[in-house]
């Protein structure tokens, strides 16, 4: 009885699936899916390597400091970084006083309450503060940016597939819309207020090209062409998203070495216990 009903149910499900298969094939032939500009012209992130790649990789502190400068002078005008605190910049090699100065001189002040009147006001940042948003709220952010919302950058390097390379590619990927694209997809012209970038999911990004060569002067005289700055800020955002990466890899090696020894010993004891038993 069980097998009889099971067979009927099996025939029903498999039959409906094969019917669906016929339908899918029929539809694929009669109404082939139209190619889209996003599908045809979207490009995978460029190949780019960072000091923090690989199981032994760690952050290049000088690069992170340069990346912070790019973020501070350029990105921070529109993009918040809510999850990172000023005190975290000690990880980049700054001492306590430098961090205090960084917090105090940050372009945006921290929202506060006037101790005398209780009214909303702002005060200079402290190391214990998280980095303040450039906008008080989403409405203000959209109003200032042609109704587009600049996303928070704290986790950007983890919130996109292959994040660090994606950020680098996006920043260096602005270009004119290819003539080929407009020929194939006349309706896909980048509209006013948007900018063509083949690394962005739908090819048209609201953010204007944020970086241009020589825009930020580095204290250590490092190259400040577009590629170098983009790479520096991509590294910095990777740190912002994954500040414990170096500790993680170090602990990982410790755990791995311990386990290799443990497992080797466990294997030997297994072999010696079973030595007299054929199995």
């Amino acid at each position, binding site marked *: 009885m069980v097998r009889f009903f*099971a067979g009927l149910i099996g025939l029903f499900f498999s039959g409906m*699936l094969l019917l669906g298969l016929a339908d899918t094939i029929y539809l694929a032939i009669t109404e082939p899916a139209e190619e889209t500009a996003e599908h045809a012209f979207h490009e995978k992130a460029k190949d780019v390597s960072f000091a923090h790649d690989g199981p032994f990789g760690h952050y290049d502190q000088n690069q992170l400091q340069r990346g912070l400068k790019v973020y501070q002078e350029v990105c921070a005008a529109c993009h918040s970084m809510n999850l990172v605190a000023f005190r975290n910049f000690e990880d980049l090699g700054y001492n306590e006083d430098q961090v205090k100065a960084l917090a105090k001189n940050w372009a945006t002040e921290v929202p506060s309450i006037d101790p005398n009147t209780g009214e909303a006001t702002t005060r200079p940042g402290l190391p214990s503060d998280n980095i303040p948003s450039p906008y008080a709220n989403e409405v203000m952010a959209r109003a200032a940016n042609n109704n587009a919302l600049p996303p928070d950058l704290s986790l950007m390097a983890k*919130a996109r597939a292959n994040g660090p390379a994606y950020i680098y590619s996006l920043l260096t990927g602005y270009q004119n819309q290819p003539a080929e694209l407009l020929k194939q997809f006349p309706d896909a012209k980048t509209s006013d207020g948007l900018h063509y970038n083949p690394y962005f999911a739908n090819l048209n990004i609201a953010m204007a090209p944020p970086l241009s060569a020589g825009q930020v002067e580095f204290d250590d005289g490092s190259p400040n062409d577009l590629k170098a700055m983009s790479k520096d800020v991509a590294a910095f955002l990777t740190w912002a998203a994954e500040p414990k990466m170096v500790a993680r890899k170090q602990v990982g090696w410790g755990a791995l070495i311990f386990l290799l020894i443990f497992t080797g010993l466990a294997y030997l004891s297994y072999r010696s216990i079973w030595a007299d038993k054929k199995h």
Partner: protein
Amino acid sequence: MSFPWANQYKPKNPVMQWVDERLPLPRLVYNATGAGYPVPRNLNYFWNFGVLSGAALVIQIITGIVLAMHYYASVDGAFNSVEHIMRNVNSGWLIRYAHMNGASFFFIVVYIHIFRGLFYGSYKAPREMAWLLGVVIYLLMMATGFMGYVLPWGQMSYWGAQVITGFFSAIPIVGEPLRQWLLGGFAPDQATLSRFFSLHYLLPFVIAGVIILHIWSIHIPGSSNPTGVSVKGEEDTVPFHPYYTAKDGFGLGVFLIFFVIMAFFLPNAMGHPDNYIQANPLSTPAHIVPEWYYLPFYAILKAFTVDFAIPFTGIVIMPAKLMGVLALFGSILLLFFLPWLDTSPVRSGHYRPLFRKFFWFGLIPTVLVLGVCGAMPAEPMWVMLSQIASAYYFAHFLIILPIVSRIEKPLPLPGSITEAVTGKPLKAATA
């Protein structure tokens, strides 16, 4: 329970004697996972995965309890509290990545454990109860894993909850009210998050309880083995301790090596980047996909594209969506009936030439293809593949297995486990 030649617990230490007379808990452990449990001597490495599943559950419970001390189940605070764990809690990143990857590893070892059972016929008499309880554990794991994935309140958390609870709305008449009752609202919100957190904390302990029953039920007939031949004498078995504790110790080491590699060096490889974006009910991700361990079932769900209807009348008896949901649940529930679908008296796939072909060239590729299809967008090629694979999946269990067990001519079985291992027959005296 167990075999007459099993070692007896005889504590020498007076304290243990005192305890044993009053509460024979050490005796229970001794008989369950100690020297008092005789186990077939010929188990291969696939038999490590039961213990590994237990180890994975322990890792999840320990890391989970610590995470719950720092996690804050609120729609405004959940996402940031997870990041607080990652950034500010001492070694919080370790605990959280261990929990996140531990879930994947729990499913990896359980899937191997399940497919070991499928190949070696561990679901057959007299071990049906262990199999049925195993399916219950698996269902509980799926519920627990799903609710756990919602807790960080990222984009995939939110939209996964939206999609999966949406299954219930496919049920006629009561579907929509049922969905709202489960969510505590019209869409995932604070009520949903709070109850999911509560249940996510509760269910692992329910799983632990069912695991005790699962182990109990396997101790009545004793463990199965790769030949599928029942234990016939003392020579066929070895005491669990030290023989299998040693082997499991080695297996646990290998498991932890893989676990450490993923959790410390590739912690986000098995996750989805969108879950690092805070949940936003107003912005739907381009592709909503569940965690990898649900992908085969997600592919089955999406494979149903045609309504069950009376042709040319427009009368729909069963819409495609409902059928997809029924098939999704059916694809797991059919495992409950497996002991009665496969009627072959031979347990091990080694001695079943036809069964073995369908297993390796039918079932295994099908499940892998479904897993890939589940992650893919609904483009015709992937839909076709998942339709073929889903059709095979149901046919395999519900049609092919019953027929195969009827027409197949099994290979000759060894006389005993000892004979299979040593080539010499079991001594008559112990038989």
